[in-house]
């Protein structure tokens, strides 16, 4: 009976996937899996041919999608047949959808390796059905506080999943993720050497993080990305290792090169954020025995899906978009650092909005106070534009606290793309950076096309 129910779930999922492919291509990364799980709530557990030793989950706050996609590229370059959720549908239904596509009509998974990006909050549910023998934790930081509350809540969820025989791949330089090493017998640590874009956080109002073991302050020698870097606890001495198992070293941003244990690797995404994704992926690929030459070849031509950096034209202006996740200070800080690294005069557009992840929607902007905007203000920003019909003034107030005079901030209390772009068009300067959500960026691109069309017409 159980077997029949599973097969019914599988076929329903396959039919749904087929229908979506025919009728609404590009959609439906969750629907087939949702349907299968509705019919058989233990669908993942009932799949045949799964093996924890050949199942890798990538979880954590930031970098899951990039690491998973980079790793998939490496394994495929090495000739692996993969079951992977490339589109980032990382909840249990999304993972089920990906597996349905790689499962025979009789329920056997046809893949050499199951590689899944897994949402950290739902990991106990997913891993309860499909046990990963290999678990990568990219980092555990503040994110989506309306759902996650605080990092320690997510930390507890990960602890539930980790078994003594799980092989862990842990960020050596992020204190919370790194501390999970005590839970498993085999741990592979990955990290990034101090490099040209490493930074300090000066000032009397700077904060770090509490030690996951003793709650005393952690001190970072230097930051490679926000709250990630070589560290030591001021209380119990818990510290990052000076020699993680996989250390991305000799970082050369200009020529797109780094090395691991002397082996050279090219990289196309020259930002500190990506270096940790490269480091995690190289660590896992090496642990599975992939040759350095194959890994390097995959690094060389890797193209990220749903990139963090895009651009579009608006009259004489070039707008460079930097993707961020709201309620996630690390991604906002990375965006700020990226812009601040450009010494040319520039306009910065800040399109924060109310949080619409879950009901009730709400107007949280407090995460902006975890970030340092001062370095942005010190980098030749001629004009700021804050837009949103709910929190534009909050964005402007945050800038004022970073020392930006009010008269250099243009406030547009609207979400209307055309209105925002018209206001932007009135600002002097052609070098524009835009920080906002992907959804808002896409609306602005559509509005820009509309404006260009109207001008031509």
């Amino acid at each position, binding site marked *: 009976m159980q077997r029949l129910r599973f097969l019914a779930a599988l076929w329903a999922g396959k039919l749904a996937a087929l229908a979506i492919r025919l009728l609404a291509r590009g959609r439906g990364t969750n629907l087939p899996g949702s349907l299968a799980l509705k019919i058989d709530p233990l669908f993942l557990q009932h799949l045949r041919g799964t093996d924890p030793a050949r199942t890798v989950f990538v979880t954590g706050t930031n970098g899951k999608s990039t690491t998973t996609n980079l790793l998939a590229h490496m394994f495929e370059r090495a000739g692996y047949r993969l079951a992977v959720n490339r589109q980032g549908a990382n909840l249990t239904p999304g993972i089920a959808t990906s597996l349905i596509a790689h499962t025979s009509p009789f329920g056997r998974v046809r893949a050499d390796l199951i590689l899944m990006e897994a949402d950290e909050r739902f990991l106990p549910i997913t891993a309860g059905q499909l046990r990963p023998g290999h678990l990568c934790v990219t980092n555990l930081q*503040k994110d989506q*506080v*309306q*759902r*996650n*509350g*605080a*990092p*320690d*809540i997510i*930390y507890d969820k990960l602890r539930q999943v980790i078994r003594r025989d799980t092989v862990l791949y842990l960020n050596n330089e992020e204190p919370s993720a790194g501390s999970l090493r005590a839970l498993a017998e085999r741990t592979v640590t990955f990290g990034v050497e101090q490099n040209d874009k490493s930074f300090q956080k000066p000032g*009397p*109002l700077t*904060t*770090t*993080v*509490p030690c*996951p073991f*003793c*709650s*005393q*302050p*952690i001190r970072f020698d230097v930051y490679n990305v926000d709250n990630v870097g070589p560290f030591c606890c*001021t*209380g119990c001495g818990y510290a990052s290792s000076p020699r993680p198992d996989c250390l991305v070293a000799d970082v050369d941003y200009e020529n797109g090169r780094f090395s691991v244990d002397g082996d050279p690797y090219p990289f196309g995404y020259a930002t500190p954020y990506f270096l940790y994704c490269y480091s995690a992926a190289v660590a896992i690929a090496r642990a599975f025995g992939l040759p350095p030459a194959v890994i390097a070849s995959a690094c060389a031509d890797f193209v990220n899906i749903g990139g963090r950096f895009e651009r579009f034209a608006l009259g004489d202006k070039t707008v460079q978009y930097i993707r961020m996740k709201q309620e996630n*200070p690390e991604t906002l800080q990375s965006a700020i650092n990226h812009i601040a690294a450009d010494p040319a005069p520039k306009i910065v557009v800040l399109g924060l909005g*109310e*949080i619409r992840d*879950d*009901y*009730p*929607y*709400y*107007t*949280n902007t*407090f*995460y*902006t*106070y*975890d970030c340092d905007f001062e370095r942005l203000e010190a980098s030749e920003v001629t004009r700021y534009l804050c837009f949103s*019909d*709910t*929190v*534009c*003034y*909050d964005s*402007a*107030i945050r800038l*004022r*606290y970073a020392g930006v005079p*009010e008269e250099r901030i243009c406030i547009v*209390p609207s979400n209307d793309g055309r209105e925002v772009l018209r206001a932007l068009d009135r600002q002097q300067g052609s070098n524009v950076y835009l920080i906002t959500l992907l959804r808002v960026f896409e609306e602005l691109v559509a509005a820009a096309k509309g404006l260009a069309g109207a001008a031509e017409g």
Partner: protein
Amino acid sequence: MEQPCVNVLWMYPDSLHLHGDRGNLMALQRVGALLGISVRIRRLERPGQTLPLDWADLLLFCSGELRVMPALLTGLRPQRAELAGFAAQRGRVLAIGSAGTLLARETRRLPPHASFEGLGLLDMVCTERGSVYGDDLWFRLLEEDPLELYGSQIQIVDTALGPGQAPLGEVLYGRGNDGAGAEGARREGLIFTNALGPLLVKNPRFAQRLLARVLADKGTPPMQVPADAAHGMEDAAFALFKRFTVGKEAEMARDGVKKPV
């Protein structure tokens, strides 16, 4: 004439900094400047350090992970009597968000975590929620001059006030302590609120009132009163917030969504 000053002791900034809380310190400095007050900030870095209560006028505890609270309390318990005396006689203590668990009688945690006793300076019991509740929060202070405050709320624990414990305010929108209409708590110089934002950034007039009262405790009035225009952007932000919040429940009803509790 010497510029009056307020000494702010920033409690455990690396452990209690969950929700952009350092903005509160920035706000105190800015509002202090508008009042002609010098706001001096000292960090108390490590649990167990002696509280410099002779120096401090205002203690600020911000929100943090529940896992750090027992360690902080281990350091605070031996100084409970001094802290109670400080709040009763000459100082102010502001606890925001989950830092309320430090001042509460008890925090009941979900398994596998152990519940813990707080300092019991406010008569309230905190109970860890099974799910996080995040929303806007808008409330009115229960004072003669009833200022309206607002912010966000990330509720990890619900708070029940004891029978003799006064709330800080009444909820106009949001959950407050436990959804029953009361927000925060106050006793003598102790104030607890669930409002994040950062609270003092979003509500500069509350920061102004807090600093003025600290100075009054010391027998020194502020040197100047800021013009309303100094808070123009904050007032505009509050106006957008009100419009959004008022429309929010209608939007949820339209979308057929029941408000989570």
